[in-house]
């Protein structure tokens, strides 16, 4: 792709954003019948080709926002637009990387990677060839006949990445995808993700509660406040690319950004803690 290595969005300014939340409000009825507002009036636009990280205290409704972008959940107020079009069902442009294991446990690695193509009725042989290419890409060529439970957590994540990427989505939604991995594996996976992203420059909406991860990966970090969630801060991360997540943490610019954003985030985490103890 003819995208410069720096931090410029791939799409011209006139193109509609890859994803736009407009006045999105989400409420749930609790079992006791109370109405719990998870987020109110959230406005957020993500330009095509950018890597945006959403951070916020746990339980602030980050996942809810992502599910609204996926079309898995419909906000009672406000609209979600995908490339300019109002979302009315499952988002056809998006792939989703879940924190939990989301592979079909009864399918082999190869069949799992094929899944999106199978659902789109791509001929079997072509789907398998494409899947093998992706398995090779994520370093799991030798494991195509295994079942998910026979793989380690990191390997299962790689399969999930191949499964999401194979359908060539324009938008990638990631809900703390590496949250369940150990620190070392996590760093390896973050680097692999960045490498893949560098090649394709797909729009990414990445959720994490780990601010370091957010800064290391993203072009832009959006801080959500604790419930009901609103946008508290929006920071451009102008660190050089390509990055190595371990090295970038030693960059003085990284530390400066971390301090600035953490000041914002800390208040929310504290508020959330107080709320939890008060309840």
């Amino acid at each position, binding site marked *: 792709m003819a995208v410069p290595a720096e931090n410029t969005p791939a799409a011209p300014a006139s193109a509609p954003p890859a994803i736009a939340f407009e006045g999105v409000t989400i409420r749930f009825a609790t079992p006791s019948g109370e109405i719990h507002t998870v987020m109110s009036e959230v406005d957020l636009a993500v330009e095509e080709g950018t890597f945006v990280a959403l951070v916020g205290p746990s339980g602030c409704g980050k996942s809810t926002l992502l599910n609204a972008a*996926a079309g898995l959940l419909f906000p009672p107020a406000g609209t979600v637009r995908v490339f300019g079009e109002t979302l009315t069902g499952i988002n056809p442009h998006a792939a989703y990387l879940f924190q939990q*294991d*989301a592979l079909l*446990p*009864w*399918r082999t690695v190869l069949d799992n990677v094929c*899944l999106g193509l*199978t*659902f789109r009725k791509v001929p079997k042989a072509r789907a398998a060839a494409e899947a093998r290419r992706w398995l090779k890409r994520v370093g799991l060529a030798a494991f195509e006949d295994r079942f998910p439970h026979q793989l380690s957590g990191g390997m299962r994540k790689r399969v999930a990445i191949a499964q999401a990427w194979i359908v060539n989505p324009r938008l990638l939604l990631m809900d703390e995808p590496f949250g369940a991995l150990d620190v070392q594996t996590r760093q390896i996976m973050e680097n692999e993700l960045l490498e893949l992203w560098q090649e394709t420059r797909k729009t990414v909406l990445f959720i994490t509660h780990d601010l370091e991860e957010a800064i290391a990966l993203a072009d832009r970090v959006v801080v959500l406040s604790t419930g009901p969630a609103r946008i508290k801060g929006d920071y451009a991360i102008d660190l050089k690319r390509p990055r190595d997540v371990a090295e970038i943490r030693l960059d003085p610019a990284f530390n400066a950004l971390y301090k600035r954003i953490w000041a914002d985030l800390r208040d929310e985490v504290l508020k959330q803690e107080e709320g939890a103890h008060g309840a």
Partner: protein
Amino acid sequence: MARERPPAVVATRKRASRWLVLALQVGFFVLVTGTWQAGATTGWLDPFFFSKPSDIAGRMAEWILSGYIWPHLIVTLTEAMAAFAIGIVTGVLAGLALARVELLAAVFDPYIRIFNALPRVILAPILIIWFGLGMGSKIALGVTLVFFVVFFNTFQGVREVDPVVLNNARMLQASDHQLMRHVYLPSAMAWIFSSLHTSIGFALVGAVVGEYIGASQGIGYVVSQAQGVFDTTGVFAGLILTSIVVLCIDLAIEALERYLLRWRPQS
């Protein structure tokens, strides 16, 4: 690979314990039949009511060698397998439908409860009136037993689908039909299989009880004939033969289950 060692260790341990279990199983059998045989020989147990293991074994051998039992066994097995097959298909279809369509589940819930609570043997007379003394009535009785076991398990299995796996498939653009085939059904498979072990027994219960009440062929008929002349040896021989057949079918189901559910982690 770090994983390759542990399974080898587990396998050896499993093997050792399997021999022990087998030895104890045989020991238990010898103990029970030995006591029975001794009791019947010494007169502690009245052979008129309890027969003798040696007599029963002799009778079974006689039946098998003379070819007398085969037609009866084939009739009973045909009835049981037909009931089993029809019960599985209808049970799975009904389970999938009711688990997916909230309204259907709500409407049929009370009727299913009532019908399931009903002792099915009570239906045998009416089924014989409807379907006659032949195989039809036995199959129908077996179906009423098998259906509910399979139905409840399928229903539960579909309800227990991991929502993350389901959402992932939806994000990959699975249609409703594809979700059913690739997600709901395989997810319910473990539940369905556990219901098959119970329902193969029920299918045979349906066949044998139906034959016992009214038939001219089948193991149930043989047992009922033997009972009519106070031939306890014949009754026991029929019972034991039926049990052996059930055990064989159950082992076959287990082998199929092991193959189809090979994706599950061994615990």
